[in-house]
């Protein structure tokens, strides 16, 4: 029996340890608000799909497995995409293709095909919960670093008189633009992974 939460957040963090589902992690991390919405979208799809999959697995022939599970993830990814287009058009615009692309997200398919479909729904639920949280936290952290360095702002949800954008003095006037570009995504993830490995290695004395 695994520990429910620290598993997905630290030991097997999808972004920083097992490197699955990197497309949204790299692409949606240039603004904090995009990362929060993307993390939440992936979390919802992951939890729903992994809880459904153990119930369906008996009825799916082996040859059609990928076909069937991508149909399920595709349906939910389309729903979330339409939902975002209606409620948050500006964020949806900025995330672009990456919400529909959650259909073939390696993290979701990996958890369904390699873990959830042969386990029980409640195990699958806890696994999805911890993996989703791990992904969410890693994505939010990356986005925070990239946005502060890359444009000197922190973009959050606008509420009342608060416009949603926090400006960092000093960096806002002279941002390091490279961190906002796709090259910066690779750099930040590379250094974050190295730092995470170092921290994990010390903790376990490997």
């Amino acid at each position, binding site marked *: 029996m695994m520990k429910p939460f620290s598993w997905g957040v630290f030991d097997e963090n999808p972004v920083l340890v097992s*490197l*699955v*589902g*990197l*497309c949204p992690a*790299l*692409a949606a991390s240039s603004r904090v608000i995009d990362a929060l919405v993307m993390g939440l979208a992936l979390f919802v799809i992951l939890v729903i799909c992994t809880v459904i999959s153990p119930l369906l697995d008996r009825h799916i022939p082996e*040859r*059609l497995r*990928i*076909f069937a599970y*991508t*149909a399920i*993830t*595709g*349906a939910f*990814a*389309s729903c979330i*995409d*339409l939902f975002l287009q209606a409620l948050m058009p500006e964020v949806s615009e900025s995330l672009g*293709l990456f919400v*529909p*692309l959650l*259909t*073939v*997200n*390696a993290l979701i*398919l990996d958890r369904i095909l390699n873990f959830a479909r042969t386990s029980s729904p409640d195990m699958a639920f806890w696994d999805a919960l911890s993996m989703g949280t791990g992904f969410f936290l890693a994505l939010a952290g990356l986005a925070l670093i990239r946005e502060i360095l890359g444009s000197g702002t922190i973009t959050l949800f606008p509420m009342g008189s608060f416009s949603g954008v926090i400006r960092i003095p000093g960096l806002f006037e002279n941002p390091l633009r*490279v961190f906002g*570009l*796709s*090259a*910066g*995504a*690779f*750099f930040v*993830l*590379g*250094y974050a*992974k*190295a*730092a995470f*490995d*170092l921290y994990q*290695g010390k903790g376990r004395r490997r």
Partner: protein
Amino acid sequence: MSYIGILVSFTFVHNIVLDLLMGEKSFLTLASSRKIIFVYGGVLSCGAALSSLTAWALYHGILLPLGVPYLQTLIFILTITGLGIIAGLLLDHLCPAFYAKVRDYLPLAATNCTVLGVSLVSVRRGYTVTESLTAGLCAGAGYFLAAFLLLTLKESMKNEWLPRPFRGVPITLISAGLMALAFMAFDDVLLKNLVTG
């Protein structure tokens, strides 16, 4: 947009892995030998071309007349995985020796972001049928180019000393970032000059 424009755009300017950031997992971890890159790049180019072609046909032939363009993601992914299964069956039947080489890569390519991504991009940009085909082929070529260059970088770094935490994936990520910076030399101005000039 002209075909040269599409070629330059998908292969260099908006390279599928370095600029659009799709298909990262296989780009960073699968690419471990030249043979794998050749086979996987080939499978991916053919898959992307075939799927953007069928995506065009489905979108303009079925989804638009029925007025349900919002089903595109679902229909496209079903087509892509279906095509993957059919291609596997056909190859197994016609040429088992070749199928044995590519069988591990077919499901991987079918669930690669690149293939679905290119189909969605070419439909949303309103490409014609031959433009969609070109876009699919060029995106695959861009993937191949980036993966091949990354492998060459990795090989030349094999004998260099690196701080322990950076060995393996982190240095690969940082090299990919530097490559993305280098690819920024190909920018939209270059593309415009090529297309109009």
